[in-house]
């Protein structure tokens, strides 16, 4: 068990050291998310539509698209020079590799989101600070589901020539329950609803998080085979 946790930590450490040197993953995700938000800002007339009605959808579109770039990049690092083969040769359970990548993806996406949220607040002129706690819970639940499935599918598609295209094609349809849940909850939070008043949605999103992780644990062995 100790070795297992150590292996997960080693993968996260390795991804962090790489990112500290290159800063490619975070900057690419951040710029992309920022651009999505800016494009919407210029195309929507906020004096006609209510910011809290369109805002949640736009926020999650930005997170998802930027996150997809992050997932692709994160797996590309493993494919370069046959590193994934090197990982297959260490005495680690395949699930340790999955959880290592899941956690580092989750951390990088969360950092990107923490930078985007204040900008979103300024551009849309929405007060997020008064609902910050519940908002972060919802963002975490959505991001966890996204990373859980995204990490699995980016390893599945990593052997395909068309990886960059296949990942979103496989990922987005399967993510629909989580996206609907996250957008709905974000909207309700901006309208001032409390977390307990949307237990149904929280339950739905959290169940899908668990389902995605469960499916990944069951299938990762076969997926990482060549």
């Amino acid at each position, binding site marked *: 068990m100790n*070795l297992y946790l*150590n*292996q997960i*930590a*080693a*993968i996260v*450490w*390795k991804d962090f*050291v*790489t990112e500290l*040197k*290159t800063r490619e993953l975070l900057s690419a995700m951040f710029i992309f998310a920022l651009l999505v938000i800016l494009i919407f800002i210029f195309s929507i007339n906020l004096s006609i539509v209510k910011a809290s009605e369109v805002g949640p959808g736009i926020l999650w579109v930005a997170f998802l698209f930027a996150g997809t770039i992050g997932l692709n990049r994160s797996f590309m*690092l493993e494919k*370069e*020079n*046959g*590193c994934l*083969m*090197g*990982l*297959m*040769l*260490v*005495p*680690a*359970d395949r699930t340790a590799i999955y959880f290592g990548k899941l956690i580092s993806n989750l951390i990088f996406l969360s950092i990107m989101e923490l930078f985007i949220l204040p900008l979103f607040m300024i551009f849309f002129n929405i007060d997020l600070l008064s609902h910050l706690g519940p908002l972060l819970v919802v963002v975490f639940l959505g991001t966890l589901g996204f990373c859980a499935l995204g990490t699995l599918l980016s390893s599945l598609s990593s052997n395909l020539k068309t990886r960059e295209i296949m990942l979103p094609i496989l990922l987005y349809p399967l993510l629909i329950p989580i996206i609907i849940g996250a957008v709905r909850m974000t909207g309700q939070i901006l309208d001032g609803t409390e977390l307990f008043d949307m237990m149904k949605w929280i339950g739905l999103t959290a169940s899908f998080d668990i389902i995605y992780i469960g499916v990944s644990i069951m299938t990762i*062995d076969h997926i990482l*085979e*060549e």
Partner: protein
Amino acid sequence: MESLENAIEVRHLRKAFGTLKAVDGIDFELKQGEFLTVFGPNGAGKTTLIKILSGLTQPSSGTAKVAGFDVAEGHPEMRKEIGVISHSTALYADLTPLENLMFFARMHGLEQPEDKALKVIGEVGLSPRRNDRVRTFSRGMLQRLSIARAILHDPAILFLDEPFTGLDLHAANVLKEHLQRLHDSSRTILMTTHDISCGLEMCDKVALQVQGKFAFLENISDVDKDRFESMYFDAVRDNQFAMGISL
């Protein structure tokens, strides 16, 4: 106990990619401490054989046991016993040699990963460059570093796929001496190479793989080293005719 004595035991091993038979019925065993060199022309299936034995790819049929484990089961304990040098370096380009090897040491669960990493970096002569990014390394330096990665956890069985590629004369000699030491301390080694004199020099057994089959498998004591080369060239030529290549 019989399976433990044989470090590697391969029976009717086959691997097909569609209609292409990369490995086509290979049988052999290696006792602990034996050194097998596999020669063979390009595309003979040597790399595929090593990939199957190291558990990286599944055989289409047949069985292979390595350190007593069935390779098809993909047991993590088996991977503790093997070290692999392959065509790709399996090193992270944005990390330094030290960071790369510390990472692999931690994944292997070794105590004091930093000390272990520094030690093997010294052994392959990369200490002065230990803090440079691997991306900036030359071909031979990368090869040295992948050797370091393969021997980091001191495995009992080594699979070396053309380990001399890109090494300068000095580094090649260092690797030869190192392999000799490993051989003397009864590590089991399976090596592929295109360098005939070097491959024959170190091994206990020689195999010649052609089109997925061992056309030849003998103890080194039964091999006439001078005739081996002409035999090898005959096999390569036949193979190229079979593949429709004429030079």
